[in-house]
C-alpha cells in the first residue's frame, strides 16, 4: 500500500508532525479570522496597534498621572502592549475547543494544539504590534531605544508565558463550564488597572506596593520597563515569584487540558 497514514509515529517524527499540525492550524485560524479580503492577515497586528495607538493618544491628551518622569508615550506603549499580550490570549482560548470539536476526528490534532495555535497567533500579533510601534516611535524621536534589549525580550516572554498558561487553563476550564466565560470578562477588566499597565509600583504608597506585588503580572511589566528605561524606571519586581507562578499555573493548565481531552465528545 502506498502513502498509508502511519498510526503511531516514531518519536523522531513526532516533532515534525507537531510542527506541521500547529502550522496548519495557525494558517487555518488566520484565514478564518481575517480572511483574504482587504488587509487580510495584516489585521493580526494592525488591530492591536490601533488599540495601543488609541490608548497612547488618550493618555497623552489627558496627561495621565503615572507617578514617574517617564515620557507618557513610552509608558503607554510598554503598559498597554503587555496588557494586550496577556489579556487577549485567554479571551481567544475561551470556547476555542467548542468551535473546533470536529477537528478531534483527526488523531494528530490534540486538544492542546487547538489552544496552542490560538495562543501563538495572539502572541505573534501582540509582538509584531509592540515591535512595530517601538520602531515607529523611536524613528519619530518620541522614544529612546531600549536600554537593555535582552531584558525587554525576557520580560516580554515571561508575560507571554503567564498569558499562555492562563489562556490554556481558562480555555480548558471554559469547555466544561460556561460560567468561566461570564466571569473572565469582569475579572480581566478589573485586573487591567491593577496589572501595572497604568502605574509604576514605585509611585504607590508602601502599603499598596506590597499588595500590588502579589499580582504576578505586575512583576513582568516592571521588568520590561526596567529593560526599556533602565534605572530611570526604579522598577520593583521578583522574577522568581513570577516564573514560579507561571510554572504552577502551567501545571494546572496542562492538568485541565488532560482532563478535558479525556472526556471530549466530538460532534
Amino acid at each position, binding site marked *: 500500500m502506498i*502513502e498509508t*497514514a502511519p*498510526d503511531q509515529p516514531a518519536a523522531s517524527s513526532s516533532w515534525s508532525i507537531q510542527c506541521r499540525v500547529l502550522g496548519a492550524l495557525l494558517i*487555518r485560524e488566520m484565514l*478564518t479570522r481575517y480572511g483574504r479580503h482587504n488587509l487580510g492577515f495584516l489585521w493580526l497586528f494592525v488591530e492591536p496597534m490601533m488599540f495601543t495607538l488609541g490608548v497612547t493618544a488618550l493618555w497623552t491628551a489627558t496627561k495621565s498621572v503615572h507617578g514617574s518622569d517617564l515620557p507618557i508615550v513610552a509608558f503607554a506603549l510598554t503598559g498597554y502592549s503587555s496588557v494586550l499580550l496577556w489579556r487577549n490570549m485567554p479571551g481567544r482560548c475561551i470556547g476555542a475547543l467548542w468551535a473546533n470539536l470536529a477537528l478531534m*476526528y*483527526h*488523531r494528530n490534532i490534540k486538544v492542546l494544539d487547538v489552544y496552542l495555535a490560538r495562543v501563538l497567533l495572539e502572541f505573534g500579533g501582540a509582538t509584531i504590534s509592540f515591535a512595530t510601534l517601538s520602531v515607529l516611535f523611536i524613528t519619530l524621536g518620541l522614544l529612546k531605544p531600549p536600554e537593555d534589549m535582552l531584558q525587554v525580550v525576557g520580560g516580554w516572554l515571561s508575560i507571554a508565558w503567564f498569558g499562555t498558561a492562563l489562556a490554556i487553563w481558562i480555555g480548558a476550564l471554559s469547555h466544561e463550564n460556561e460560567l468561566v466565560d461570564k466571569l473572565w470578562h469582569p475579572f480581566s477588566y478589573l485586573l487591567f488597572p491593577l496589572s501595572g499597565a497604568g502605574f509604576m509600583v514605585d509611585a504607590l504608597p508602601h502599603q499598596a506596593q506590597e499588595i500590588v506585588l502579589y499580582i504576578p503580572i505586575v512583576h513582568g511589566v516592571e521588568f520590561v520597563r526596567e529593560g526599556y528605561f533602565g534605572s530611570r524606571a526604579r522598577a520593583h519586581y521578583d522574577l522568581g515569584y513570577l516564573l514560579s507562578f507561571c510554572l504552577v499555573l502551567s501545571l494546572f493548565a496542562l492538568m485541565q487540558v488532560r482532563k478535558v481531552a479525556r472526556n471530549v465528545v466530538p460532534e
Partner: protein
Amino acid sequence: MISLRDVHKVYHTRHGNKVVLDGVGFDLKMGEKLGVLGRNGAGKSTLIRLISGAELPTSGTIERHMSVSWPLAFGGAFQATLTGIDNIRFISRIYNQDFERNLAFVEDFAELGPYLREPVRTYSSGMRARLAFAISMIIEFDCFLIDEVGAVGDARFHARCNFELFQKRADRAMIIISHDAAYIREHCDRWAVLHNAKLTLYDDFELAYGDFRIQIGLDPQPVDDQRPVTSRRALVETSQHRSLQDERFMMLAREGDWRRDAGQWSLSEESYAAALALYPYERSRWGQHGHVTRANGLHARAEASYRTACALGVPVQDVHDFWVFTMAGQSVDPQRWPLRGYVAGPASSQVPGRPDVELFARILWCEDRTDDGDIVDLLRNNATCDELLSAMLQDQRFDAAHPGWPKIVRTDQNPVRPSDGPRALPQADAPDGDEEESVAGWIRDICVIALPESEQDETQISLSKIRTMENAWPILASAGAFSDWPLTQSFLRDMAGSQTESRSQA
C-alpha cells in the same frame, strides 16, 4: 488489526449516568468488513468515534495496528467560512500529503466546479456531502469508518462512492453503521447488532437481521411529534414525517425495497403492507406497493394502490403510466375511470383511498378484510370520501351488520357528554401489545376523519368507547360523526324518514 477489549463508555448527563457501551470487544483484521446494526441512539456513532480515536473509552482498551479513518462522508471537519480549496489544503497539511494531487482528485470527484473557490457555507447539503466524501478519499487509510453514507446525494454519486470504496479499496478493513440493513448485507462479511449497550457479533446476516428485527418490534420508540391530528388532511400530512421517524415503519419499508430489488414481489408486498398497516396514510409507499403488486400480476390490487397514492398526494404523472398498464391488464378503458389527484379541503370532498374504504368497511360492514375487487370498484366510482361513505351505507352489507338502523340507537338518544367518560386517549394509558396497537390505530384514524375538528372532547370520548367494529358505528353516529358530509347526511335523513314512516304505518 483493530482490537477492542472490554470497552465501556458512560456519559454523564443531567438525568444520571447513561451506559452507552458495556463490555464491547472484537477484532477486525485487514480486509474484513463489519456491519453494525442498531436502533436510533443505540450508540453506533459513539462506537465509531471511539474506534476513530476522537473520543476515549471510559474503560477498556482499543488497539489500532492499522491507520483508521475519520467517520466517512462526515462534513463537520470543514471550516464553513473557508473555501473548499482551503479545506483541502488544511487536510493535506495535517496528513502531510501533496496538495496539488489532492486538489486534482477532489476537483474531478466532487464536481463542484468554481464552487471549490467559494466558502463551504455557501454549498448545498449535496455539495457538502460530495466534498466531504472526496476529501475522505484523499488519505489512504487501512480501515475506513463509514457512518450512514447513503444518507445524502443522488444515485450517480452513490454509485461513484461505492466504486471508490468497495471496488478500489476492496482490500481495506471497514466498519459500516447504517439503518439500511440491505446496504450492510451487501458490503459486509461480518455483522453485529448493538442493543442495550451490548454488541453481539454474527457471521450470518440473516441471524443478525432477525435479532435486529425483534428488537425493533419489541418496544416502539415514542414519536417526537405529539401534536394531535384533527383532520384527514392533517393525518395525510403528518403520516409522512411520523412514519420516517418510526423505526418499525422504516425497517419494514426498507425490507420491502430490498426484496423488490431482488425481484421477490410477494415478499416485498408483504413488507410494504406491514409498513402501511402502521401508517395507512403514508402516500409514497402506496406507490411502491402498487409497483410490486403490478409486477406480481395483481392488477386490481395495484390499481387500488396507485389510486390511493394519488389520492394521498403523489403527483398523478408519477404513477400514470404504471396505472394505465394495470388498467390494460384488467382490460378496462382508463378513460372511463380517470385517476384522481389529491384535493385539499374538508374530509368529505377529498379523494378516497384504500385505507378509507377499509376504515368504512370496518365501521359500516364490520368487515376486517375487504376484497380487492370491491375496493377497486368503490375507488373508481366515488370521487370523494362523502360519495364513498354514502355508497357504502347503501350497500346491503351495512343492513346486514346493523339491521334496522337507525332504530337501535333510538333507545339511547342522549348524546355522550364530555364528563361521562375518561378523557385520556386509549393509547396514552396502556402501551399494550401489537394487537391492541393496531386496533387503537384504526379507531384513532376513523375518529379523526369522522369527527369535526372543533369537537376534541367528543373525539376522545368516542376513542375511549370504541372497542370493536360492532359498536363503532353507533357510537360515532351518536357523537355526531360525519355531520358536515352532505351526501351521507341526506342519506341518513332519508333512511330515518323512511323508518318513521314505516313505523307510523305499523
